[in-house]
């Protein structure tokens, strides 16, 4: 950063600034009601996903054909589906899959994207060119399309779907991380020297991570929502995760033929997806506002 | 309240600011940007508003044109009489007929003052079409004339701002401001963002244009050198108040307020053997949490007990010279200056 017209960055000053910045960010975030609501909702769903199935009244596979399409009752909170399975229990189990796919997909793309971005930014030159072209190629294909084709190639199943969902987002993280290296390059490294000593290495990472965290966090939070929705979409198309797995999107697909007469079979899974994604978006918005308040008003 | 100097109260008074109070609201805190500012200007005068960054100088200038961002800024009370009429009470169309026409402003940062997607010539022609009611062709012709006046060749009128350097952009802004022969020009640190060599050019240009049309000017700056060259009257601003006011000679020769004295003391003196610069201790007060009494007293080397209580009145000195300090005699004695 420029200070008094001179390009100067004392590492220790930077760190002190970052810590108080962090506190300021947390303070701004805590004041934002919507973001707080979003966070609470997400935490509730995560808890439900982890603990829910232990408390679910029925197993998600438990069928009771004589009682199919039952309306809400005391024994079946949200009724039963076309095979007599308890919808409420299936939603609880499904939380694991849907949320799991969303978070896992983002963790996957974040790891790979960060790794690639670091290589591109740090070494520059040929490897950077290669990685940036790779990002270009990935971004030349619309996200969903890429997810579709990877999912089609790999087949259905949880891990395969995680990869399919994450692939499209890699380019985003990669570019963000690499961008953090650019201003540093002009400061510390005048020539593209290979002999970079260890202390620089550590300093670099202490610079990169704090700066990169802000945009990454926002993108990742919104990205989880995007992945959850794409997962549902994939299930709908016959890819991703398939019935009888109670992933919310798969539940929607399976109930499609009954939507005329039993619309609540579609209503509840869709509602779950909508609420979770809404909460994630609220949180993401709040994070973005907290990280750069100038943009808010 | 500042005691009026009766001799100045004649038809020559172009601008009269009385008890101006401006606040900014941010995060539920109130920032007192301008606190009971009063001053008068005669036709043809150049008034220098001097002070540190954040003292409130720009806010005062923007209040005159009423172009403060609202929210968060609010003009709480006061009167701004321009040719006898109160600007703060004017309605939309009357106000707009003054802006860019009778009063215009040059801003501090030329890089962001011009609209990036509109051609430079058109941005100047705008003013002619708005206030002189010219048609497009005539307006553009006049715009080109203004550009040449500020030293920009005519064929560059169809270019976009990003194609100009900082200094040239500022000249465009000046051309825009002077296009309709305003009676009052507000120049907010017009040369701060420019190179020193360009600074001189731009200042000279402003001065000569000013001379030609007898334009009055309020020049905001923190550079005392510029003030000495260009201004007739000086108002020293601190924490949103005018703590000293007078003619150039009065302020430069007999500075009375400890802050003003401190400002001059902070200047390197070519004649004497000075080993260290003498900056004023401490920092300007937080405008959301102003100290009681005299705002400068926490930093003042001559502060007394009673400086921390009550409002500080302006004390009349010689001629037009006024000062917001109760102890000027003591200060003068200590500092060895004359009152």
């Amino acid at each position: 950063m420029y200070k008094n017209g001179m390009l100067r960055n004392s590492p220790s000053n930077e760190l002190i600034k970052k810590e108080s910045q962090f506190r300021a960010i947390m303070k701004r975030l805590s004041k934002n009601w919507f973001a707080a609501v979003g966070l609470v909702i997400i935490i509730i769903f995560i808890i439900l996903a982890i603990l829910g199935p232990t408390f679910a009244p029925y197993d998600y596979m438990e069928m009771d054909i004589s009682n199919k399409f039952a309306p809400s009752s005391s024994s079946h909170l949200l009724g039963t589906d076309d095979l007599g399975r308890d919808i409420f229990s299936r939603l609880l189990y499904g939380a694991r899959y849907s949320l799991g796919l969303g978070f896992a997909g983002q963790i996957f793309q974040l790891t790979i994207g960060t790794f690639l971005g670091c290589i591109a930014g740090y070494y520059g030159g040929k490897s950077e060119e290669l990685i940036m072209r790779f990002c270009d190629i990935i971004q030349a294909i619309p996200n969903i399309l890429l997810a579709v084709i990877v999912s089609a190639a790999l087949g259905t199943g949880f891990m395969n779907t995680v990869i399919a969902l994450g692939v499209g987002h890699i380019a985003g993280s990669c570019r963000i991380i690499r961008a953090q290296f650019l201003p540093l390059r002009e400061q510390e490294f005048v020539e593209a020297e290979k002999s970079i000593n260890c202390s620089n290495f550590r300093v670099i990472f202490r610079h990169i991570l704090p700066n990169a965290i802000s945009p990454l966090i926002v993108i990742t939070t919104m990205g989880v929502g995007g992945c959850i929705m794409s997962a549902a979409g994939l299930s709908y198309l016959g890819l991703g995760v398939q019935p009888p797995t109670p992933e919310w999107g798969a539940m929607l697909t399976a109930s499609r033929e009954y939507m005329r007469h039993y619309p609540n079979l579609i209503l509840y899974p869709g509602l779950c997806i909508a609420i979770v994604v809404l909460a994630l978006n609220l949180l993401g918005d709040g994070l973005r506002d907290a990280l750069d308040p100038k943009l808010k008003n | 309240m500042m005691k009026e100097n009766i001799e100045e109260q004649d038809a020559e008074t172009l601008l009269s600011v009385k008890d101006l109070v401006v606040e900014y609201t941010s995060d539920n805190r109130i920032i007192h940007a301008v606190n009971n500012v009063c001053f008068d200007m005669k036709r043809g005068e150049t008034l220098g508003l001097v002070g540190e960054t954040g003292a409130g100088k720009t806010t005062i200038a923007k209040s005159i044109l009423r172009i403060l961002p609202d929210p968060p800024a609010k003009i709480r009370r006061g009167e701004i009489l321009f040719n006898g009429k109160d600007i703060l009470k004017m309605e939309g169309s009357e106000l707009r007929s003054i802006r860019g026409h009778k009063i215009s402003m040059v801003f501090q940062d030329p890089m962001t003052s011009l609209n990036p997607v509109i051609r430079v010539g058109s941005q100047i022609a705008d003013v002619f079409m708005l206030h002189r009611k010219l048609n497009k062709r005539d307006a553009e012709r006049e715009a080109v004339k203004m550009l040449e006046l500020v030293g920009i060749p005519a064929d560059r009128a169809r270019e976009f701002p990003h194609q100009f350097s900082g200094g040239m952009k500022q000249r465009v802004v000046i051309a825009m401001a002077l296009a309709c022969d305003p009676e009052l020009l507000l120049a907010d640190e017009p040369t701060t963002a420019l190179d020193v060599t360009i600074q001189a050019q731009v200042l000279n240009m402003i001065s000569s244009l000013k001379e030609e049309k007898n334009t009055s000017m309020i020049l905001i700056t923190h550079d005392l050198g510029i003030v000495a060259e260009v201004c007739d009257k000086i108002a020293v601003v601190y924490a949103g108040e005018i703590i000293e006011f007078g003619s150039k000679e009065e302020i430069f020769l007999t500075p009375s307020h400890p802050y003003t004295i401190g400002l001059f003391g902070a200047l390197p003196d070519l004649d004497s053997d000075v080993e260290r610069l003498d900056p004023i201790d401490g920092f300007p007060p937080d405008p959301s949490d102003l100290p009681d009494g005299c705002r400068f007293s926490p930093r003042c080397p001559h502060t007394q007990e009673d400086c921390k209580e009550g409002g500080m009145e302006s004390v009349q000195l010689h001629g037009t010279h006024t000062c917001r300090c109760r102890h000027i005699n003591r200060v003068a004695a200590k500092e060895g200056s004359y009152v």
Partner: protein
Amino acid sequence: MIRFITKRIILMIPVVVIVSILIFSIMYFSPGDPVEVILGGKATDVEIAAKRAEMGLDEPFIVQLGDFLYKFFFKMDLGRSYITQKSVWGEIMVRFPRTLMFAVGCMVLSVVVGVPLGVTAAVHRNTWIDRTCMVFALLGISLPEFWLAMQLVIIFALKLGWLPAYGIGGPQYYVLPVIAGSVHGIAKQARQTRSSMLEVIRSDYVTTARAKGHSETTILYKHALPNALIPVVQVLGNNFAISLGGALILENVFSIPGIGTYLTAGIAARDYPIVRGCVIFLALVFSIIMLLVDLAFAFIDPRIKAQYEKQGAKRKATGREINV
């Protein structure tokens, strides 16, 4: 400028080539044998081997790849469906106009509804108008599209009977699909426009315009909006990608015989030529759209136009004029 356009078009080619190779390889190395699927489970090994030779699937990978690329780039031939034996390219050409109409319809609606919504919200910031608009926008990006589509079908087609639930025919068949597909786009566009408008309203040149004596309306529409729309154009390309993706799924919901349904049918049947052909074709379309958007940029923002014209050499990391 012409040089820039030519350069971009030329650069597009290797990208499309590599994408084609990538897609081909992904399908090639994916598990599952198409021959077995075609012949059914009861075919003998001899039959399988014969069929494989007949389809050219016993050739080495490179040969198959080369053959595919050659046919695509020089003959516009994407192969034939394993199952129907019909030309993939031919089928795409029949179906694509429908998908295109759908995607373009969604995009147009996004802009026509989303931008004014965003401008209104920005101008009335922090009032109830602003909050309502933004609540709708937030809901819009959170609701799953196909779920929304299904709900719309339930209400408007099944219960009220106003609009058809599936198929194509006249314009009324596109109403529900386009509405369902636009909700995301409208919401995104509204949010984007609002935030970009707010940023522009705060800028120095707007203050300058005010200081010149312009009316608030003029400032809004002549000075602020053109600048605020620049980032909006920027995401148009992205939004088109999303519309295309949405088309994939929504075509299935509404049984519209476009590329979306073709692709999903191909996936279900493991009919690789169809899958390959559709994906590569869509990638190509997308690249072209992005190029057009980048060009549209130049018309709107003179700074970008200048930058394009300067671009003869490689872009250096330092050389970006705009980030002052």
